[in-house]
């Protein structure tokens, strides 16, 4: 049973998993050749896919761009979910990637952006796409990273764009690759070599076609710029111009499409400051801008489910309002999330969402100042940056927990540490902390990395998001005492620094993600005591998961309500059972009427049984094994439901649990005791279960009947078969029930005990009580019972007072010397039948002829008579059942 349940469950699970999904859209792949380039005449073949909702008329469109190194397939999930929302979604592989033609121009306004403009033209020509004017599709542009920058650049270049949602993208590519965190310093920052290399590497793949080992599919100018900046670590004028051309920063004031900026807090490539710059630039012209942060990004991946749900919701809301124009206006609130801990189930991060009424920028809505201490310290720059400190693992992605954990490490001699005292109250840091740094260098310049650690009381230091602030300072004095402090803006983070934790500012000389000066040199650094932490106290966003709490309450409520209903119904039924059903039998201990029991497998244990047990009777239910005796008794005990007919005890119909069963004592199919309890304890445990007063039990009388002596204090598992049997009979007699039902009571008893049991039963059936005994032994029934019911093969074959049945039968068994002669003689007498039995025996139905006359006639005829045995009715009846069947039982 359990096995089959498990099988069904497994089968259902597998079946469900294999079910085909139902789609509400169709997708068409197409190679579109568009005319692009500076002149607008260079053809390029783009690999596109258009998702169209299956039903409905004209629909708004979404242009969905992919990240660097991706293809149209990378955004399939997002495209499908937007198509499910009723948008026509056009995805394409940007030029230079995948199956599209062309070279990578790094979102150049003349190439990638123009390609996208041609795609807008194409969208406007599609019959199912809604248009604002001829050639002007109703379209939003969505994309992450490379696709996000394209969205910004396209919106700046083409006024047909109705709304954009750029995710985790850049504002200024030059700043992203040469970050400089020191304020009021114009020197280009430190080259982010790891990320730049990863970027370049992912564009170097060239499936067939061109095989330039140095440049891959990059356009010549982009390739040259990379090679130069990766070699020198500083951008020259041409490189700066190229990076500027590929950046939204200079064209933000031309963006009129409402913009939703989503940026990741675990992103060492395009940190939160990039989105901040975009937001400021776009909002400056009055275009609606909304900002959201999530716990993820180029390092952190797509983030926890709650964040994904939130960004997905914000995107849909933005598009629905500004593109589809049927949704409510989105609020202007700023939402972000903070790590709350690890999920217990999948070891992933768990974040809590918060919301502020307006985007506060990177300076927070409030500030907390902590004081760090430490003298100026000398730190060494390792030659060629080796060995280098570690803060992040660019390109590994998704290893969120390890990034936030203990990957970060500083090398001895290469870093200086400035700790605060344990903070008194928790600080909710939301934004970019600032410190003031003084540095001295014998060469006059220094490349440094400033980090802010949260140190717990156990000493474990955590670098939020693996984010660090690189600074490149020039014109430094050689003595730190003469150094002017510079303000260093650390990367924006979202973190709660718990009470009792320290704030640690670390200044290091090397980091594996950056290109550091090749020559060994020793700097001296000092950090001013005041560290400013921007704070925000966001309103927690109601977690949609909270709904499950109400579900839980509802489930519990339903269960309680269901239970109450069941209890009420049951109580009613119990009350009904109390009423006597057949008044005429109210004084009859047992009436069995037309009882039939067929088991589930078709076996009919009892065909039809009717009998009555009156007060004062000891009734024997006699039959061979398998005649249906035990099944009948089981029905009488309410253990088995009859298929037809019923049994009435004192007029009450027997059902499982009928209260009238309390007036019946039973031994059915052997004793059943708790093996670890003594005989006496068993009787007490049984009586306790009845819930009746102990005084009614008559333990002494029952124990006397059991006759176990001191053995009642032994555990029943050590009892012999006969002892158990006697204890079971005693248990059945507890409380002196008015009807005693005993199944094979003498089983296992020795002859003196059997004789005693007969006396006990006869005595018991006085005072209006009655006993029903089942047995397969003729002699037992004959000697114990006042009445007998003979059953065979599920039917009653004889019933009545024992003396009636036992009384002399009309037949006689004769053993004669000459069977043939005897038959001849008997034929002349008035007998009904003569049946030979064995070699010398004859069974004669006398038909009233006296035995003396038969014997006399035989002797007269010269036939010797050895034996004359009168037969009894009960034996007749019983033998008739068994018949000549050599198996001698009622097996069916």
């Amino acid at each position: 049973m359990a096995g089959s349940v498990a099988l069904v469950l497994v089968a259902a699970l597998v079946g469900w998993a294999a079910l085909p999904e139902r789609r509400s859209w169709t997708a068409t792949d197409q190679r579109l050749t568009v005319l692009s380039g500076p002149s607008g005449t260079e053809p390029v073949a783009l690999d596109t896919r258009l998702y169209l909702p299956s039903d409905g008329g004209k629909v708004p469109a979404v242009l969905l761009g992919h990240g660097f190194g991706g293809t149209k397939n990378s955004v399939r999930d997002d495209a499908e979910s937007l198509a499910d929302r009723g948008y026509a979604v056009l995805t394409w592989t940007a030029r230079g990637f995948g199956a599209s033609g062309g070279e990578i121009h790094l979102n150049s306004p003349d190439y990638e952006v123009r390609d996208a403009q041609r795609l807008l033209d194409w969208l406007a020509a599609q019959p199912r796409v809604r248009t604002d004017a001829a050639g002007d599709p109703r379209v939003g542009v969505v994309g992450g990273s490379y696709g996000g920058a394209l969205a910004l650049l396209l919106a700046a270049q083409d006024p047909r764009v109705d709304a954009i949602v750029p995710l985790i993208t850049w504002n200024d590519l030059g700043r992203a690759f040469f970050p400089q965190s020191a304020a009021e310093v114009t020197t280009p920052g430190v080259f982010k070599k790891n990320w730049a290399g990863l970027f370049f590497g992912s564009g170097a793949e060239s499936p067939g076609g061109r095989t330039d080992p140095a440049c891959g599919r990059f356009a010549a100018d982009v390739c040259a710029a990379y090679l130069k900046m990766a070699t020198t670590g500083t951008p020259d004028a041409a490189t700066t111009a190229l990076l500027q051309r590929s950046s939204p920063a200079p064209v933000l004031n031309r963006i009129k499409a409402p913009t939703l900026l989503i940026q990741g807090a675990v992103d060492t490539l395009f940190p939160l400051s990039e989105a901040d710059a975009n937001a400021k630039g776009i909002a400056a012209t009055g275009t609606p801008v909304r900002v959201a942060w999530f716990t993820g990004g180029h390092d952190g991946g797509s983030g926890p489910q709650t964040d994904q749900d939130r960004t997905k919701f914000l995107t849909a809301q933005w598009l629905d309002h500004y593109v589809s124009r049927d949704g409510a206006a989105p609020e202007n609130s700023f939402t972000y999330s903070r790590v709350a801990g690890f999920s217990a189930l999948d070891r992933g991060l768990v974040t809590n969402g918060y919301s502020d009424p307006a985007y506060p920028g990177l300076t927070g809505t409030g500030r907390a100042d902590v004081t760090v201490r430490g003298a100026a310290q000398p730190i060494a720059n390792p030659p060629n940056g080796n060995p280098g400190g570690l803060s992040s693992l660019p390109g590994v992605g998704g290893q969120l927990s390890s990034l936030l954990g203990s990957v970060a490490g500083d090398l001895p001699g290469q870093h200086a540490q400035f700790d605060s005292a344990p903070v008194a109250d928790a600080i909710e840091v939301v934004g970019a902390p600032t410190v003031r740094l003084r540095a001295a260098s014998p060469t006059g310049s220094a490349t440094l990395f400033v980090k802010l650690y949260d140190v717990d009381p156990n000493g474990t230091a955590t670098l939020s998001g693996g984010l660090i602030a690189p600074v490149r300072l020039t014109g430094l004095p050689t003595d730190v005492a003469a150094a002017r402090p510079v303000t260093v803006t650390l990367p924006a983070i979202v973190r709660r620094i718990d009470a009792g934790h320290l704030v640690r500012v670390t200044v290091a000389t090397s980091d594996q993600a950056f290109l550091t000066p090749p020559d060994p040199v020793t700097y001296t650094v000092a950090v001013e005591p005041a560290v400013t932490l921007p704070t925000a106290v966001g309103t927690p966003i109601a977690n949609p998961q909270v709904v499950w709490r109400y579900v839980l309450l509802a489930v519990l409520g339903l269960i309680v309500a269901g239970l109450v209903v069941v209890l009420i119904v049951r109580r009613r039924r119990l009350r009904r059972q109390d009423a006597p059903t057949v008044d005429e039998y109210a004084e009859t201990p047992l009436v069995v009427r037309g009882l039939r029991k067929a088991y589930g497998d078709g076996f009919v244990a009892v065909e039809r049984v009717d009998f009555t047990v009156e007060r004062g009777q000891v009734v024997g239910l006699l039959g061979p094994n398998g005649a249906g005796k035990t099944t009948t008794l089981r029905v009488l005990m309410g253990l088995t439901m009859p298929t037809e007919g019923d049994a009435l005890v004192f007029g009450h119909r027997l059902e499982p649990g009928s209260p009238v069963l309390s007036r019946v004592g039973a031994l059915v199919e052997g004793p059943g005791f708790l093996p670890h309890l003594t005989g006496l304890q068993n009787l007490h445990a049984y009586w306790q279960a009845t819930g009746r007063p102990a005084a009614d039990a008559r333990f002494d009388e029952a124990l006397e009947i059991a006759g176990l002596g001191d053995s009642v204090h032994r555990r029943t598992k050590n009892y012999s078969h006969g002892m158990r049997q006697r204890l079971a009979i005693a248990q059945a007699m507890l409380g002196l029930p008015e009807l005693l039902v005993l199944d094979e009571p003498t089983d296992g008893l020795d002859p003196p005990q059997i004789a005693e049991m007969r006396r006990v039963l006869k005595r018991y059936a006085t005072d209006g009580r009655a006993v029903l005994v089942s047995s397969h032994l003729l002699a037992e029934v004959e000697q114990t019972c006042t009445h007998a019911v003979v059953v065979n093969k599920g039917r009653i074959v004889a019933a009545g007072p024992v003396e009636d049945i036992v009384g002399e039968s009309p037949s006689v068994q004769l053993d004669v010397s000459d069977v043939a002669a005897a038959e001849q003689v008997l034929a002349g007498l008035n007998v009904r039948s003569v049946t030979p039995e064995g070699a010398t025996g004859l069974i004669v139905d006398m038909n009233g002829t006296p035995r003396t006359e038969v014997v006399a006639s035989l002797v007269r005829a010269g036939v010797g008579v050895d034996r004359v045995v009168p037969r009894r009715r009960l034996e007749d009846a019983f033998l008739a059942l068994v018949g000549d069947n050599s198996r001698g039982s009622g097996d069916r």
Partner: protein
Amino acid sequence: MSAAATGYRATATMPILAEVRRQASRRRTQLALGFMALLPVIILLAFEFGGDGDDDNGGGAFASLVDLATSGGLNFALFSIFVSAGFLLVVVVALFCGDTVASEASWGSLRYLLAVPVPRARLLGVKLIVALGYSLLALLTLAGTALLIGTLRYGWHPLGSTVAAEIPAGEGVLRLLAILGYLAVVLLVVAGLAFLLSVLTDAALGAVGGAVLLWILSGILDQITALGSIRNFLPTHYSDAWLGLLSTPVQTDDVVKGAISAVCYATVFWALAFYRFTRKDITS
């Protein structure tokens, strides 16, 4: 005229106290509860005499529960629960709930109880309540003993975990109680399953083993990530969600979902058990 014998009331049959005593007299009950008290002692001795093993059991952030086990009584109790929750407690609950009806059937005493007559639903109800009571007692014995000897040996310190800040001892006790409460709810599934099997079979071992087996099967299926969201419907899927109660702020989402799952499963299993038992022919 009343149908029943004098002194008989259906609602008075099988008093809960009688069933409690009936089960308490069994060696199985005594051994199980005794082991629950003994286990923390064994763990403590292992920590005392064991060398410094350096094997990472791959439990990720939660492996630190091992490192923190000796940092205080609360952490020791937490560790004892952590190591027992996956299997030991399942077996113990399955034992109490799976054995209760099936063993009566196998002794043959079930038919005599029903012939008293104890109404079938009442018999099941009392059996279930007492089995659940003993299961809870086992859980509390384990936690209580661990907390007691852990505190005696390692002192009374805040509840530490690497997933969040240290939790002050007072609140730590509340967290511990919440964890025990959630574990108790999750184990209702085992209790339900074992009880259903107990009603379906006369072999006590089959009911206990069957419930544990199905629990393990569910745990294995839960490991197969290819099953996707179907796994959310597995009874074991949320069995570890109590770890979320260690973080600050407390993560209750999975705990709530786990509670819904467990309560639904348990209700279905119990409903099936009552439905079946009140209708079946007792053949033992």
